[in-house]
């Protein structure tokens, strides 16, 4: 059983999806139990895998039993870099599934079996992307995740979401095609598709490592992944796609898609090309860090300009992607930047999940799309507000939330590698986040004139002029995921030490990586 965890992890949601495809539209009430059971199985397998990696080190799983020679079959590989991401994906997906009891608005609720089937297929693909050790298999799974997310975005009832989905589709396809092109250049130069095999070749064969085709391959793969993760100049598809889709979709896609893409980038850097090759043969890592600086600043400024809450969060994602790309490319001797980026994948996943869940609740229960609609929020929904405030503080970087520690490691990496621009950008972005969230907190606390009509009248607070603000009931299935995610933010922050130690096991030891600028 424990030997089969890597396969079970990917297959449980797949079988759930197929089961829903077979019998889902007979009885819609079947959907949620099937989703919960399959994602629960995945979570169990992911945690089991994590414990196994903790005990024995990296685990290889040879599909089809093709072990020798390396590269004829497809290998799944779990190590200390991807098992935390797997656990994150499983946990986030489970929480969102719980949250999304009425996924697609009233107009299309008869399509919910298909919605949940796509949901499970997306989870399958994300697990597969994270655990695979084959460059081409990665492409196939990226396409599975992309196609299911196009469906999930386009299911929304607004007319704009179709256009947003088409833009997303075109950009996503171009991105995946660039990745495929890069894989082709790589295959043509080294004759292998297996990630560990390619790394061995590039480390030992000087002719291959210095070939221009391999450099081009790296650039192409990187650009493809950057489009997928909405890195700064290529972010155009993200805000519309994530803000016009149903809130269950956005709270699944926003925490997972970009973060898994960042993981893919780190994997391609460390597991395919190798940090020595990147910082030794290329030597333009500073340029990428400056791109990241621009991404962080631009994302923050664009977020300041937004009046819609979801749009603002989307631009914050663009800035956060800048954090992670910059951290991964710092190239400091102790790999603290890379550690920070990996840790930030986990932290940002939880923070984004909490914020988007909260935004979904606001939109549904208060009809609040714009930031100005949130007045009196703290009194209307005290518990939701707790989660929202925790996530907001984490985005700003207040201890003991995980946002503080990820910024701490990223800044440490920035200082050790002497990238002062990056450090300043991080601090400025924290400041902008503080402005953004305290503006919302202010409206939520002091704001008056609550929007009417959407409020479910419950018990009212008897306090002077604020007596008019009524408590809005939030059902448990929406509240529980939010609070669990908020608790996760704090717990991940408090226990950052062991998590970081575990993540660092997979990183190449502090080698003489990057020369000082």
């Amino acid at each position: 059983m424990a030997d089969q965890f890597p396969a079970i992890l990917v297959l449980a949601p797949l079988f759930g999806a197929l089961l829903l495809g077979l019998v889902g539209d007979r009885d819609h009430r079947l959907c949620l139990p099937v989703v919960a059971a399959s994602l629960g199985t995945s979570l169990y397998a992911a945690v089991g895998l994590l414990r196994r990696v903790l005990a024995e080190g990296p685990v290889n799983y040879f599909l089809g039993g093709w072990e020798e020679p390396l590269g004829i079959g497809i290998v799944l590989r779990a190590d200390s870099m991807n098992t935390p991401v797997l656990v994150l994906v499983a946990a986030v997906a489970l929480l969102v599934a719980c949250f999304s009891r009425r996924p697609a608005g009233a107009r299309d609720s008869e399509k919910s079996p298909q919605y949940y089937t796509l949901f499970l297929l997306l989870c399958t693909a994300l697990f597969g992307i994270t655990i695979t050790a084959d460059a081409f298999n990665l492409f196939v799974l990226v396409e599975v995740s992309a196609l299911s997310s196009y469906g999930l975005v386009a299911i929304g009832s607004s007319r704009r979401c179709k256009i947003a989905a088409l833009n997303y589709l075109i950009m996503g396809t171009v991105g995946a095609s660039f990745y495929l092109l890069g894989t082709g250049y790589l295959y043509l130069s080294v004759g292998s598709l297996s990630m560990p095999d390619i790394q061995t070749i590039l480390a030992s064969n000087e002719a291959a490592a210095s070939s221009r085709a391999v450099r081009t391959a790296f650039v192409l793969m990187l650009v493809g992944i950057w489009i997928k993760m909405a890195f700064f100049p290529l972010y155009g598809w993200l805000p519309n796609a994530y803000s016009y889709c149903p809130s269950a979709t956005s709270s699944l896609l926003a925490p997972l898609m970009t973060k898994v893409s960042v993981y893919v980038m780190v994997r391609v850097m460390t597991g395919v090309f190798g940090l020595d090759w990147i910082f030794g043969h290329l030597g333009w890592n500073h340029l990428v860090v400056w791109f990241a600086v621009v991404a962080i600043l631009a994302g923050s400024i664009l977020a300041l300009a937004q009046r819609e809450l979801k749009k603002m969060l989307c631009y914050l994602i663009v800035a956060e992607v800048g954090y992670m790309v910059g951290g991964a490319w710092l190239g400091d001797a102790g790999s603290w930047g890379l550690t920070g980026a990996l840790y930030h994948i986990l932290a940002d996943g939880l923070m984004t999940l909490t914020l988007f869940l909260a935004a979904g609740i606001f939109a549904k229960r208060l009809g609040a799309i714009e930031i100005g609609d949130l007045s009196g929020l703290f009194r209307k929904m005290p518990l939701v507000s707790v989660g929202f405030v925790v996530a907001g503080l984490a985005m700003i970087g207040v201890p003991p939330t995980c946002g503080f520690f990820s910024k701490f490691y990223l800044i440490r990496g920035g200082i050790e590698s002497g990238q002062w621009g990056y450090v300043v950008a991080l601090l400025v972005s924290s400041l902008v986040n503080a402005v953004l969230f305290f503006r919302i907190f202010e409206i939520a606390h002091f704001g008056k004139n609550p929007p009417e009509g959407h409020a479910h009248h419950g018990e009212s607070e008897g306090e002077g002029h604020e007596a008019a603000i009524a408590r809005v009931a939030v059902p448990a299935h929406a509240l529980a995921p939010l609070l669990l995610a908020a608790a996760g933010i704090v717990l991940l922050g408090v226990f950052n030490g062991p998590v970081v130690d575990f993540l660092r096991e997979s990183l190449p030891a502090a080698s003489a990586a990057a020369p000082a600028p």
Partner: protein
Amino acid sequence: MAEFLWKTIGHHFNFWVYIVLLMLGLWATIAKNNLVKKLMGLSIFQSAIILLYVSIGTKEGATIPILDHHGHIPSESHHADVGPEIAAHGVANPLPHVLMLTAIVVGVATLGVALSLVQAIYRDFGTVEEDELLREIKSLHPDG
């Protein structure tokens, strides 16, 4: 100079063809105003990549990667009787073909979804021209 050109173009003309196709497709994807034409560009772009992969797997004088019923390399190939190591050169590389089968299927699936999105957009807005769509969106209520 002539030798350099022969080295970069003569032995690599297939790659030049694929790059030209790819540039055409990418240009259409970005610049065309009509959504269907954009999708055509996307298709050309993907086909160019397929061309690259398939040309990776070719071998001079090799035949298709299907053996005869006894598992021998077919006798028509030029290198059939020169020992196993060379005999393998008589058969094209099957791996790129397998990969491209996958990529073709992915391309078809993406194109199907994209066309259905275009149809849905046409149903909602009555146009598939991008500039008209942008104008329509601007006049739309945020919730619409």
